[in-house]
């Protein structure tokens, strides 16, 4: 457990929204509301949850594309939030991201080869000719021909563009790669190929992944551990295999029940079997346990107190009062 590349502690991001009336206080949207997790070197940590639960916000915070309200993040022992501009540049070389929509994540007026080489230019790593050679080499690494250097993104398919985005993320040889729904926008038929590529380059470059998705069947396939988010909180985190076999949190149970085994391209977490209602607004999250409004096992305590994330054995943690007692006993309290 000691060899973690990323450590996130009590991370909070509140967005201030536009006030409704002239004299109203601005409403606060609790996108990420106190989350803790570690990512071990070389592993793939999955972040799953319904739309709007704070997955992308977490990714942006870790990369320091946005500033957190509070909390701490370390990458390889370096405090991500306490860096000078120059140190931040150095940090940016260590962590990269691949976004969901490949077409819009590439400059439409830049050839894909140039786009791949851009991070080298930003960091002044190589000269023009070297950048050109490296860009062509990375085109081949992600399974494209080096002759495609001059193509524009709109001349490519979604899968090809996502390969370009992956090449761009890899060219700085980062330690951490955050994949924000990297295959959700792609045709079902090519998802598997892109996932294969991601798994291959992870082994080849010794990468650590944070894999964001709401497609649980994909997460099950690629992630060593999985964290389930609900309204800006981690409700359960465990080895993927264990989480899928015996989910403890009612929300995780519903998510996992919603995957039809027969269909590997599976439904998205948006359709929850056995769970009534919609996700409450992150502007006014429910008192107590945030899930209590939709929980089939609701108890009186759930509406009053917020359950902390507690160890339930072997690194399996869950934030639910149903499992609180067992945890209390094992802690000897």
């Amino acid at each position, binding site marked *: 457990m000691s060899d973690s590349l990323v450590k996130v502690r009590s991370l909070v991001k509140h967005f201030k929204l536009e006030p409704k009336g002239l004299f109203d206080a601005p409403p606060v949207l609790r996108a990420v509301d106190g989350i803790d997790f570690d990512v071990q070197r070389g592993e793939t940590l999955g972040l799953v949850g319904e739309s709007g639960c704070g997955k992308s916000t977490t990714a*942006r915070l870790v*990369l320091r*594309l946005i500033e957190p309200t509070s909390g701490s993040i370390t990458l390889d022992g370096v405090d991500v939030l306490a860096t000078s501009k120059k140190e931040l*540049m150095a940090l*940016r*070389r260590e962590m*990269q*991201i691949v*976004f969901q*929509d490949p077409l*819009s*994540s*590439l*400059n*439409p*007026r*830049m*050839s894909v*080869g140039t786009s791949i080489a*851009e*991070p*080298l230019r*930003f*960091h002044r*790593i*190589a000269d*023009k*000719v*070297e950048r*050109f*050679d*490296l860009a062509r*080499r990375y085109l081949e690494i992600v399974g494209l021909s080096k002759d495609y*250097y*001059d193509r*524009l993104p*709109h*001349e490519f398919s979604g899968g090809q563009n996502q390969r370009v*985005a992956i090449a*761009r993320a890899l060219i*700085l*040889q980062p330690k951490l790669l955050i994949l924000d729904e990297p295959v959700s926008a792609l045709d079902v038929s090519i998802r598997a190929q892109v996932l294969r590529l991601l798994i291959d380059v992870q082994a080849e470059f010794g990468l650590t992944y944070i894999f964001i998705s709401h497609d649980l069947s994909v997460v099950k396939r690629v992630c060593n551990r999985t964290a389930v988010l609900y309204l800006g909180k981690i409700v359960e985190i465990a080895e993927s295999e264990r989480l899928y076999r015996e989910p403890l949190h009612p929300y995780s149970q519903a998510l996992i029940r919603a995957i039809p085994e027969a269909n590997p391209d599976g439904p998205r977490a948006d359709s929850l079997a056995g769970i009534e209602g919609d996700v409450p607004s992150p502007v006014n999250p429910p008192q107590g346990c945030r899930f209590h409004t939709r929980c089939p096992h609701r108890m009186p305590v759930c509406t009053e107190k917020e359950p902390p994330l507690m160890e339930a054995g072997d690194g399996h943690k869950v934030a639910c009062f149903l499992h609180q007692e067992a945890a209390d006993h094992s802690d000897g309290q």
Partner: protein
Amino acid sequence: MTNKDQIQETSTQRRRSASELRRENFHIMLRTLQLAWHAYAKDKAAVGALIFIGIIMILTIFAPYIAPHDPNEAVGTRGGLPGTDGLILGGDMEGRDLLSRLLWGGRIALLTGVAPTVAATCIAVFLGVVAGYIGGWIDQIIMRVLDVFFAFPLVLLAIVIAGSLDPGVSTLILSITIALVPYIARLVRTTTVSVKQEPYIEAARAGGATTPTILARYVLPNTLAPVIVYSTTLIGLMMVVASGLSFLGVGTQPPEADWGTMVSDGRAVLKKAPHASAFAGFMIVIVSLAFAFIGDGLRDALDPRARVR
């Protein structure tokens, strides 16, 4: 493995790569132009307008060599109809050759259409991109100041500015430039704000790009296209405005030939010799229409998505 280890090349390899890179860059440029022209050429009206404006530009630029007479010298009968005194288009109310005046006047008309639009576009792109990308109080200051100008109709503002300066071509250009900046700056700002939200901007930031790099390589190329289209259509309109200002006496001064002043000069003899006003007025309308057609064509030519292999 560090990045430096990735790039170990022999000098022969390097030389070969360098020449391939040059070829590739040249190829990209050539193909961009080809595709842009291909998209532009689909619009026949735009092609016609481009040829027409090209011809007019050549004719007016070479007016000193082409014009059969001195534009400011009386060479025929006052208000002579086309053909009289050997003047193809006839004479104006002073007996000056209309054709020569039309050629010379075209220079000023084009200059007062193109120059303020280009100048205003440059200023507006700077202001709009800064306001739109940086946002915050800088945005507030820039846009609120421009709003003050925006509150006046363009023509009225231009008249007020031109009226408070010495009349002449440079006054004309300056006043129209100032009056035009807020219009273009608004478009630039709106486009910049929407480009700023594109994921490729965030991707560049995650890659380590600094703000100036993002502005130069990502924001500017993607905001410029709609602005160029808009500005091109404005050229014709500004020609009309400039003519109007000259008509009111705050622009070009007699005896200098200019399509705007020619229309106003012809008023005096409108009944007897309508052609004295008509030719110049006709040119203003046709040329400004042509710029609008060119703008339409550019819309497709500058959109990378509209170009298909």
